[in-house]
């Protein structure tokens, strides 16, 4: 409360009626009391602030306020008379005090000397320098193994590691982890989800709940951007070749259009799912003229390739 009330000033409190601007004493425990100025009163709570403090105290219940400061006795008024009184008493009883205190001071002096030397010699060098362990996201990617898609979440670990996953989900579908090292989690992307994301061009939504070392629990959600290679559709030696070397299954709808000379065109629809390689499709009929319309969805767009097979 400096400069209004300084150290060693005596403050006298009285009554419990106070308003904004008054200095009050409030006690949170029997031993801990604070003397601060009231800056706000709201309902059952009071906000106080020390004059020299930059910020107010947290709101306190009104019942904690013990009283309002009504009188402050400056230290200049009471300290000199008290010092004079003590000096007078010591002077009056100087002989008796000296006869008792001189031998009595020997053990006291011994103790104080020993402790002072010890405290001076064994001064501590350093205290705690503890850092809170952290786990940062390093990168997320999908390893395209051709047959299976393996998603990997990598972390940058500082004093903490991933022990095991308790919940691992891809688009709300629970998947088992394939491999967990201290700083990475790998899992196989389910085939239907791989197909959906490659077809619609979605990002892979992954949510992880994992138990960490040092009593930590991690809850994180990540999006993995995918970049599957575009499939290739071509004709070779009278056969239709569909190549999709990625691990993402793609559905190809094929309409075979065929006709003999002078006859109307006929259609046959087939479909095939291709992933991790190529598929060779023979025309379903033997005709003089055969075309193949191959339709497929890739990364959110529809593609149509019309190829002359014969």
């Amino acid at each position, binding site marked *: 409360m400096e400069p209004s009330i300084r150290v060693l000033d005596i403050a006298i409190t009285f009554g419990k009626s106070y308003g904004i601007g008054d200095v009050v004493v409030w006690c949170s425990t029997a031993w801990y009391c604070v003397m601060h100025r009231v800056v706000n009163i709201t309902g059952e709570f009071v906000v106080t602030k020390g004059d020299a403090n930059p910020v107010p105290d947290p709101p306190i219940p009104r019942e904690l306020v013990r009283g309002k400061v009504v009188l402050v006795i400056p230290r200049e008024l009471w300290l000199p008379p008290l010092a004079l009184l003590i000096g007078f008493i010591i002077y009056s009883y100087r002989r008796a005090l000296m*006869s*008792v205190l*001189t*031998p*009595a*001071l*020997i*053990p*006291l002096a*011994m*103790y*104080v000397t*020993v*402790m002072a030397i*010890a*405290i001076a010699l*064994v*001064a*501590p*060098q*350093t*205290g*705690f320098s*503890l*850092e*809170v*362990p*952290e*786990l*940062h*996201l390093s990168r997320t990617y999908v390893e395209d193994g051709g047959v299976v898609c393996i998603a990997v979440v990598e*972390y940058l670990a500082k*004093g*903490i590691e991933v022990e095991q996953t308790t919940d691992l989900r891809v688009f709300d579908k629970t998947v088992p982890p394939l491999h967990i090292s201290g700083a990475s989690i790998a899992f196989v992307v389910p085939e239907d989800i791989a197909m959906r994301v490659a077809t619609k061009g979605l990002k892979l939504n992954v949510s*992880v709940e994992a138990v*960490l*070392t*040092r*009593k*930590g*629990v*991690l*809850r*994180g*959600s990540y999006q993995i951007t995918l970049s599957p290679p575009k499939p290739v559709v071509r004709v070779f030696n009278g056969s239709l070749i569909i190549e999709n070397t990625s691990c993402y299954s793609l559905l190809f709808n094929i309409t075979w259009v065929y006709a003999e000379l002078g006859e109307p065109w006929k259609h046959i629809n087939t479909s095939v799912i291709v992933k991790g390689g190529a598929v060779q499709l023979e025309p379903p009929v033997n005709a003089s003229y055969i075309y193949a319309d191959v339709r497929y969805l890739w990364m959110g767009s529809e593609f149509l390739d019309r190829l002359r097979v014969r």
Partner: protein
Amino acid sequence: MKRLVLLKTAFAVATALEVFTAFLYISSPLLVFRGGVEGFYSLYTYRIAFLEEVVKSDVLSYTNSMALLATFVYASLQVLAIAAVLSKRLEYIELSFGASLVSIPYYGVLNGLVTVALRELARIPTPARVVTLAGVIEFPETQVVRGPAQAIATALLIALAVKLMLIALVLYIQLRAVRVMARG
């Protein structure tokens, strides 16, 4: 005279009890940690694990060694106080009084060490939730429980007060007796 012997015996018992309480106080846990931070701190020793990693602090080791030294020197002086008060030589009573007064700075030293230790212990981070790009990392909350040392400190203070009161009485009676003898 009988009253004086009784008071001296009472003083010796109170001093012995105070020394025992002092050793009990420094060896009892002052604070007990549960949760993210596990362990305890007493003025004699400490064992603190911060998120399963045992940590050491020079400051806490310093408070331990100082508390031990302060207690041993204090205990030696209390033995001296008991020996002096039970001695037949009357002039030793002043020495006994002085040795008894050592309890006051001893208690002050312990309080100072406790303050230093509490400040150091307050530096232990107690993270419950850390947010990074990896997500939210949650750690168990740390509970800090006061150990039995607080209650023992009160007992130590009471023993100290009783002891000082007894030695003051002994001193007063003995000095008065000496004065009466000197008069005649």
